[in-house]
């Protein structure tokens, strides 16, 4: 958290450096511009970065550069960035954010079923409807703070899940959820030949990919991924702006001392509600993108474990930091999709160099932590981070960087 405590306020004396925007771009300080550029590069080059191992090699299973997973990285990154605006800045821990993501998804799929298969209106609808829903939930939940606020949001999310699962079946499709069907006839530009419509951007389908083979490496550039990636960049940029704005200071003031805020002529509740709605709109964007990438939605998307996941992502990466949520989301999605696929046979291959007895021992020691046991690994890592690195992975990175810096000056 330390590096984020607004260095900008403290450096620019207006008389000495009027409008000290020099060095940065898009109205950001130099440091924030660097951060923005790093994220930009990561998003744009992800198909390369995440596919470092050649096809068919033993390490190829650690490649994460396939469209489906890359899309999940950025979508959950957006979800966590938004959650962090609420939790990281105001300290209000919502346990119901998956509901807002789910509402966004339902809004997007209805937009595609009824209006157009173009993803832009769908995503816009997702943001708007999720924002409106968050406003209602926030207005009620923010009557309480602390644990009671968390419980209220959890209750709302579970109610939403239960409603989507049963009573609201005409709108949500119940247990089976909603898909685009060949019977759907959107107002604009649906398929005329009776085939199932596909999500597109002005005709270009989300599933479109360009594959680049270099030697035995294969890199996939997927249109859907890049659309989600651009959304992440916008979401991240806005989050930097919010962190560095007077509004951002007010949100941190909410976390620090609401009593002082009241006696300073401010209404902490309205600031918190705004942060809540903004983070709900981020969740809606994530939900809308999910539908744009894969045109289906089910109620399990709103289940409370999904709400818990974004909490863990944010804390693991570093709550209240800019990069933390992205790192946390990437880390957890990588583990969920890659570590979980390692099985016993692969372990035997890895430890084949050991004598037979030792090989079996090693395999049985490691086995509980991989495959279906990846949750165990994640749980242990999460505990270690909370105990030793309260600032999350970002703090870990900073400590390592500081160590290097110190060694440099010592040497």
């Amino acid at each position, binding site marked *: 958290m330390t590096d984020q405590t607004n260095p900008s*306020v403290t450096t620019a004396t*207006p008389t000495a450096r009027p409008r000290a925007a020099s060095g940065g771009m898009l109205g950001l300080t130099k440091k924030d511009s660097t951060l923005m550029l790093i994220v930009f590069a990561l998003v744009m080059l992800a198909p390369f970065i995440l596919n470092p191992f050649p096809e068919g090699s033993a390490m190829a299973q650690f490649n994460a550069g396939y469209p489906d997973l890359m899309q999940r990285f950025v979508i959950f990154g957006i979800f966590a960035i938004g959650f962090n605006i609420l939790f990281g800045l105001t300290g209000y821990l919502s346990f119901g954010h998956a509901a807002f993501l789910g509402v966004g998804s339902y809004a997007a799929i209805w937009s595609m079923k009824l209006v157009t298969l173009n993803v832009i209106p769908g995503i816009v609808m997702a943001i708007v409807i999720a924002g409106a829903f968050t406003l209602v939930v926030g207005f009620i939940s923010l009557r309480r703070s602390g644990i009671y606020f968390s419980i209220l949001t959890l209750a709302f999310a579970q109610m939403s899940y239960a409603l989507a699962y049963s009573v609201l079946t005409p709108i949500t499709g119940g247990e089976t959820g909603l898909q685009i069907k060949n019977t759907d006839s959107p107002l604009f530009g649906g398929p005329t030949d009776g085939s199932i419509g596909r999500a597109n951007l002005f005709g270009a389908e989300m599933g479109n990919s360009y594959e680049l083979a270099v030697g035995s490496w294969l890199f996939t550039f997927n249109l859907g991924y890049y659309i989600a990636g651009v959304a992440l960049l916008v979401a991240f940029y806005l989050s930097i702006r919010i962190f560095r704005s007077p509004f951002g200071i007010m949100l941190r003031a909410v976390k620090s001392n609401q009593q002082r805020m009241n006696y300073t002529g401010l209404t902490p509740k309205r600031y918190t509600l705004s942060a809540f709605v903004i983070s709900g709109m981020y969740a809606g964007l994530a939900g809308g993108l999910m539908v744009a990438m894969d045109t289906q939605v089910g109620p399990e998307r709103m289940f409370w474990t999904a709400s818990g996941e974004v909490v863990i992502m944010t804390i693991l990466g570093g709550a209240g930091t800019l990069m933390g949520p992205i790192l946390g989301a990437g880390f957890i999605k990588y583990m969920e999709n890659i570590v979980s696929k390692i099985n016993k046979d692969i372990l035997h291959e890895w430890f084949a160099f050991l004598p037979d007895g030792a090989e079996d021992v090693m395999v049985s020691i490691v086995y509980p932590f991989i495959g279906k046991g990846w949750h165990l690994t994640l749980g242990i890592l999460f505990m270690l981070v909370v105990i030793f690195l309260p600032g999350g992975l970002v703090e870990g990175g900073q400590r390592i960087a500081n160590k290097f810096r110190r060694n440099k000056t010592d040497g």
Partner: protein
Amino acid sequence: MGILTVKGVNKRFGGLQALGDVNLDVAENTCHAIIGPNGAGKSTLLNVLVGKLIPDSGSVVFDGQSVLGRQPHEINQMGISRVFQTPEIFADLTVMENMLIPCFAKRDGAFRMHAIQSTRHEGDMIEKAESMLDEVGMLDKRDMTASSMSRGDKRRLEMAMCLVQDPRLLLLDEPTAGMARADTENTIELLKTIRRERGITMAIIEHDMNVVFSLAERITVLAQGTPLVEDTPDNIKGHPKVREAYLGEAQV
């Protein structure tokens, strides 16, 4: 009639009459102290003034407007700032951010979605905050996290946060409670300077007679929720009723 007028205020907590028919008149550009033994109702009165408590009856008028039924933030926007017994600051934020918050509150009101503007482009506000920090001698601490400062500095910061809003009335709740001798002296000096240079009207609740007699121009003595006397410090010192109710305690 003064800037703050309290008339016939009553407040009961169950069987306890915390405030009984309190009348108070704080004249503009004076320092008015409210003293009294423990349980005299000083804090209750203060909480009524800032909107934290609503009295059972009576009226509180500030600058021609009733404050009763208004929220604390509305009362602050009317021009009343409060310094707490234990400094209430934004401990996790830097000193500069602590100063900017009241500046924004004064300019933008109770709420504004200034989410895209950059704080470092708020030149006027930064300048205002800096000159106030300079005035209380804390400019060199502007980048410190507020929680890492000494108690005396936190008190100083809290006062600066109140003063930067140019309040019409500054309420001080035992501003030197629990302070070391030197810090108390510093605080008295600071308050004197503020009184002299800014001419801010102050109402102060205080236990420490030294503080009261070096600052106050009028003193109201409360006992068991009712004002005993209101007079100048010199007259209060020798007043028999006051000796009985307040100073007498210690002599028996």
